């Protein structure tokens, strides 16, 4: 039997996920990011890290609710992009915004909960990114791998809390992210409700 060649969507998705970063690079060199480009880059990278985190968390609910199984193929890539944007966000904060002013950065980490939480979230993403290849699933064993990757739930919560704590007065945007996250996590909790479990088994 001849296997039908699948249309290679993945490279397109990859390029699409990279577009926000390309825009930022373009914006920096053309001055389109306004008066404070460092702040603009920092904010945008943080926004995209959160968006990709939420998108990654939306994959399995999409499969379960809408029934699109094919989205699962993109979960790893989206998760890695979440890590990429979060890591760039932290790197720009350390290397550009603070320009490696370690004493100030250390004070920020100790004194300011939103920095502490944000930094912890990015660091917690590292083991998830490292263990993302399929070979790592085999090495760790499915159960342990799954347990490790449950870390993404507290990481996403930390990301939204980080955003919520840093805004001055206008909490509308962090609330939107919070509502989406609450839905995505709520859907998972709902599936585990004992009453629903009984109903299904009867």
């Amino acid at each position: 039997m001849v296997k039908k060649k699948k249309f290679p969507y993945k490279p397109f998705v990859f390029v699409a996920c990279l577009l926000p970063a390309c825009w930022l690079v373009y914006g920096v060199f053309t001055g389109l990011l306004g008066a404070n480009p460092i702040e603009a880059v920092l904010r945008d990278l943080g926004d995209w890290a959160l968006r990709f985190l939420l998108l990654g968390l939306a994959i399995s609910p999409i499969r379960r609710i809408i029934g699109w199984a094919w989205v699962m193929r993109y979960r790893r890539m989206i998760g890695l992009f979440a890590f990429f944007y979060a890591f760039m966000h932290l790197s720009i904060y350390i290397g550009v915004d603070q320009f490696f002013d370690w004493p100030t950065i250390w004070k920020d980490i100790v004194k300011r909960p939103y920095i502490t939480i944000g930094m912890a979230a990015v660091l917690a993403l590292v083991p998830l990114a490292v263990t993302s290849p399929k070979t790592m699933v085999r090495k760790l064993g499915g159960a342990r791998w799954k347990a490790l990757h449950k870390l993404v739930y507290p990481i996403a919560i930390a990301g939204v809390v980080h955003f919520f704590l840093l805004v001055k007065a206008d909490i509308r945007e962090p609330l939107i992210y919070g509502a989406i996250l609450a839905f995505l996590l709520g859907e998972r909790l709902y599936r585990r409700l004992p009453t629903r479990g009984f109903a299904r088994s009867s």
Partner: protein
Amino acid sequence: MLIKKTIASDPKSFEITSRSTYLKRRDFLKGGAALAGAMMFPWSLQAALPKKIPNLVKSPFSTDEPVNKYDDVTGYNNFYEFGTGKSDPYSNSGDFKSRPWSVTVDGLCDKPGQLDIEDLMSKFQQEERIYRMRCVEAWSMVIPWVGVQLSSILNKFEPNSKAKYVEFTTLVDPEQFPGQKYPIIPWPYREGLRMDEAMHPLTVMATGIFGEELPPQNGAPLRLVVPWKYGFKGIKSIVRIRFVEKQPVSTWMTAGPNEYGFYANVNPEVDHPRWSQAKERRIGEFLRRPTLPFNGYGEEVADLYKGMDLRKFF
């Protein structure tokens, strides 16, 4: 063929072209159209372009530091009445009307009344004051303000001896201020100064920037400038000035009591709870620079706060 007579009051061609260099890139076409329109219908020019303020005198209080770019000063603003994004004030202020405009001045004074913007522009000497502006968010700019020393305005209304503070209030009009449709901070925006702060020679009621009348996003038609305090003390689009006995409660004091105090003097030693105030990024520069006590105006104003614990009165 259109024959254009030259009138003395017509804007000179060099005035028009110099203005065009200020225009934002994305405004270039709009500006070009306005320019073309202005050449055919010169009387439309007033509405199309901000007016120059005549007979400016320079102030000895001005800094000689390099001034920030016009685009940055008018495109990167905190003016929540137009939206909370930094470019929202620029983008959402197209319909704002700064004329006619008058300010009610009342409270503990002997001659309460109205301050009309046209009177303010014509009966008071307009000065250019180039000041540093330090935002509470740890960025700063150098801005060539045009304005009138606040004391000379306040004295006309003869505040009496009971007046200890001055309270300022911004216009409320959600039609013109789309940001006011949401209770992001309590409207109207309010600010206050102690009497001696308000009467200090550095304190200015600004009517313009870069030699022209204030654009809406910078607080048209008149806004407060207190260069040794964080930028949010510089209340914009003022409609009321009131002499009071008790310390007024400012909008940011209500919105975040442990984050914003009444005095809000620039102080590198007292951090905002959520970020350090030790350094600032001057817009246009890469590295952060150290923040100076009283934003570098300590020599002029430190005496006002002698004996006060500036950690307590932040």
